C-alpha cells in the first residue's frame, strides 16, 4: 500500500506542478491537493489512526471526479469553441484511471 500511495503522490504532484507551469494555477493546486491526499496516507495522518487504504480509496474517488470533469468540460466545448485535450490532460486522465482501479481494490478492505 505504501508503494501505491508513494507512486500516486509523486505522479499527481508532478502533474500539479506541470499544470501550474502551464498557467493553469488553480487546477494545478487542486491536483496538488490530490497528491497530498496520497502523501498523508504515507504519513499516517499526523497522529490519527493510520488507514493507508482509506487514502487510496478517497484519492481514487477525488481523481475520478476531477478527470470526469475534465472529460466532460472538453467534450461539451465542442458545442461552441472546442478546447481539445492537451498532453498533460491525457496524462492526468490516464493516471486517474489507474487511481480509480487502485481505489476499487482498496475498497475491498472495507467491505
Amino acid at each position, binding site marked *: 500500500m505504501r508503494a501505491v500511495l508513494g507512486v500516486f503522490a509523486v505522479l499527481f504532484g508532478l502533474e500539479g506542478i506541470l499544470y501550474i507551469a502551464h498557467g493553469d*494555477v*488553480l*487546477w494545478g493546486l*487542486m491536483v496538488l*491537493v*490530490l497528491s*497530498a*491526499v496520497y502523501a*498523508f496516507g504515507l504519513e499516517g*495522518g*499526523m497522529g*490519527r*489512526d493510520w*488507514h493507508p*487504504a*482509506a*487514502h487510496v*480509496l*478517497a*484519492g481514487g*474517488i*477525488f481523481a475520478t*471526479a*476531477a478527470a470526469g*470533469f475534465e472529460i*466532460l*468540460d472538453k467534450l*461539451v*466545448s465542442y*458545442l*461552441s*469553441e472546442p478546447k481539445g485535450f492537451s498532453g498533460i490532460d491525457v496524462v492526468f486522465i490516464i493516471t486517474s484511471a489507474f487511481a480509480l482501479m487502485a481505489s476499487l481494490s482498496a*475498497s475491498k*478492505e*472495507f*467491505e
Partner: protein
Amino acid sequence: MSTLKVVALVGNPNVGKSSLFNAITGARQYVANWPGVTVARKEGVRIWRGREIKLVDLPGIYSLGAISIDERITRDYLLHESPDVVVVIVDALNMEQGLYLLIEVLEMRGNVVLAINAIDEARKRGIRIDRYEIEKHFGVHTVLTSAVTGEGIEELLDTILHVMDSKEVHSLVKLTYQPEVEERIREIEEIVKKIPRLSSYKPRWLAVKFLEGDEQVSRMLEEEGIKPLSEDEAKRFKELIAARRYEYIDAVLREAVRGEGRKMTVSDAIDHVMTHRFLGIPIFLSMMYLTFKFTFDVMSPFSDLIDQGMSRLGEWLSSIMGEGWVTSLVVDGVIGGVGAVLVFVPNIFGMFLALGFLEEVGYLPRAAFVIDRIMYKLKLSGRSFMSLILGFGCNVPAVMSTRGISDHRERLITILVSPFITCSARLPVYIMLASIFFKGHEAIVIFAMYVSSIALTAISATILNRILFKGEPVPLVMELPRYRLPTLKNLGLYVWERGKHFLQKAGTIILVASILIWILGSFPEEGSGSYAAALGKFFEPLFRPLGYDWRMVTALIFGMAAKEVVVSTFEMMYGDPAAVLPQVINPAVALSFMFFVMAYIPCFATIAVIASEAGGWKWALLSMTYSFTIAYIISLLVSVLGGMVV
C-alpha cells in the same frame, strides 16, 4: 366515499425522509409555508388502493423538545392538527436516535407506524433487523423500506391504510421509567386529569414533558397551580428520563439487530480523509472550485446557444415588426432585458446541479463539519455554515433556514451576514463582466469572487461578534449521513425546486423591471436625456471615486429589486456591453463593480425577510447600511489599487 386522510412523516435529519416522501408522492407535491412562519411545508398526495392520502413532510428533528423552530412546528402539528397516522422514519444504520424520537411520539399520541429506511444499505453491510422484535417492544407496526430501491413502499402504504381503518388505537406501548420518576408522573397525571383546559393532551405526555423541564409544558402546568421543579430536580429528572429511554432502546436493539461489525466501512474510510484535520479544508476548496468551474466552463456552451437564439429572435421580430417604439419595447426592452438574464439559466441550473450532487452524495454535511473548526473560531458553528451555503442559491431561504439555529446570538449574526454570500442572482453579473474583461480566466475570477464572498462573510461575523454580540457558540453536534449515489429523480427535483425560482423571477420581476427600465431609459428622450439617466446622474458623484459612470449607477439602483436586473440594465443602457464597456471602464473598475454587486444592499425580498426573521426593521436597516458601507470601501480599494496595476 372516503375522505382525504392525512399522514405526517417525522424523523431525524438525514434519514432519507424527503427521499421517502419523494418516492411515495412522485411529482404530486407542492410547497407552502407553515402558518405564521416561513419554514417550507412540503405536502404531497398519493392515490393508493383507490384512496387519496395526503402526506406532510415535517422538518427533520432530533427530539420533540420545542427548542428550535423546526421542533416547535413538528410538535404543534402533531398536537393540534392531529394527522390520522404518523410515520416515524429511522435510519437502519443508525437507529438509536430515531427510536428516541419514536418514544417521544408514542408518549404523545397513537396511530404511529415505524419505517426503518435504507434497509438495502444495512443488508449490504450484513446487518439483519428483526422487525417483529421491534414491533413487540414498541407496539408499532414496523416496515422495512428503501427510498432508493423502492422496497417496502407498497407495504408501508398498506400499513398506513390498515392503521387508519382500524377501530382500535394503535401504538400505545408504555415505557416504564424509574420508580421515583413514575411516582411523580402519577401525581402530575392525577392533577392534569382534573383540568378541563388540558383534556386534549395525554396526561402522561404532559407529565413526562414537565419532568423533562419542557418550557412550554412547564408554563402551562404552572399556570394551573402545579408547583415548578427546582433546578436540581429538573436536571435530575431530565437525566433519568433520557437514561431510561436509551437503556430501553439499547436493550431492544441488542435483541433486534444482528451482524453489526465494528470494522471500518467504506463511508468511514472516505470520511477519514474528507474530514481530515489538514486535508479537509483544501478538499472542500477543491470541491467548491470544481463546482464553479462546472458552473461556468461546462455550462457556457449552452449559454452561448441561448444567446444566439435570443439574438436571432430579436432580429426576426425586428424584421417583421418594422421600426417604431413598440418594436423597440419588445426587442430592446423585453427580449434584450429578459433575454440577457435568461442566457444565464444554464449556469444557474449547472450550479444547482453541482451543489445538489454534493448534497445528495452526502458531502455537504461533511463540509459543515470541516468548516465548523473555522466557524468556531468566529464564534459561529457549522450549523451557520449550512444556512450560509443555502445562500449560494438565494439569500432568502438562507435567512429563513436560520430558524434551525437554537442560539439567538448565533442566529442573528448568521442572518446579518447571509447577504454577503453570493447568491445565484449575482452570478450573471460576474459572468457578464468576467467574459468581457477577463476572457480565458472567467472560472478563476468567478471562483475568486465566491471565495471573497465567503471571506467577507467570515470577517463580518467576527466584527459583529466583537462589537454587537458577545458570547460563546453552541458546539455543533450532528450526525453525518452515509455517502450514497444520488438518484436522478432526487437530483432533478433538487435542481428544479431551486432553479424554477430563477425562471419565475425572469417572467415576473425581471420582465416588469425590463419594461420599466426601457420606459425610463427611452423617455422623455432616449439615452442621456432619459429619466433613468437623470436618476443615475443624480447619484453619480457618490460613485465617481469608484470610477462608475451614470449607467452603472442606474444599474445598481435597479439591481436592488433583483440583482439580475443589473445585467438587463447594462444590456439596455449600453446596447452591446461587450463592445462598449471596455471603452468606458478598465478591468480594475469592472472588478470593483463585481465586488460592489457582491456586497451592496441585499435585494428587496432579502431585506423583507431579514426584517421579519431578525425581529424588526432596525435589523434590516442595519444590514443595508452595513453592507453598503462595506461594499463601498472594498470597491474603492479594488478600483484604486487595481488602477495602479492596470
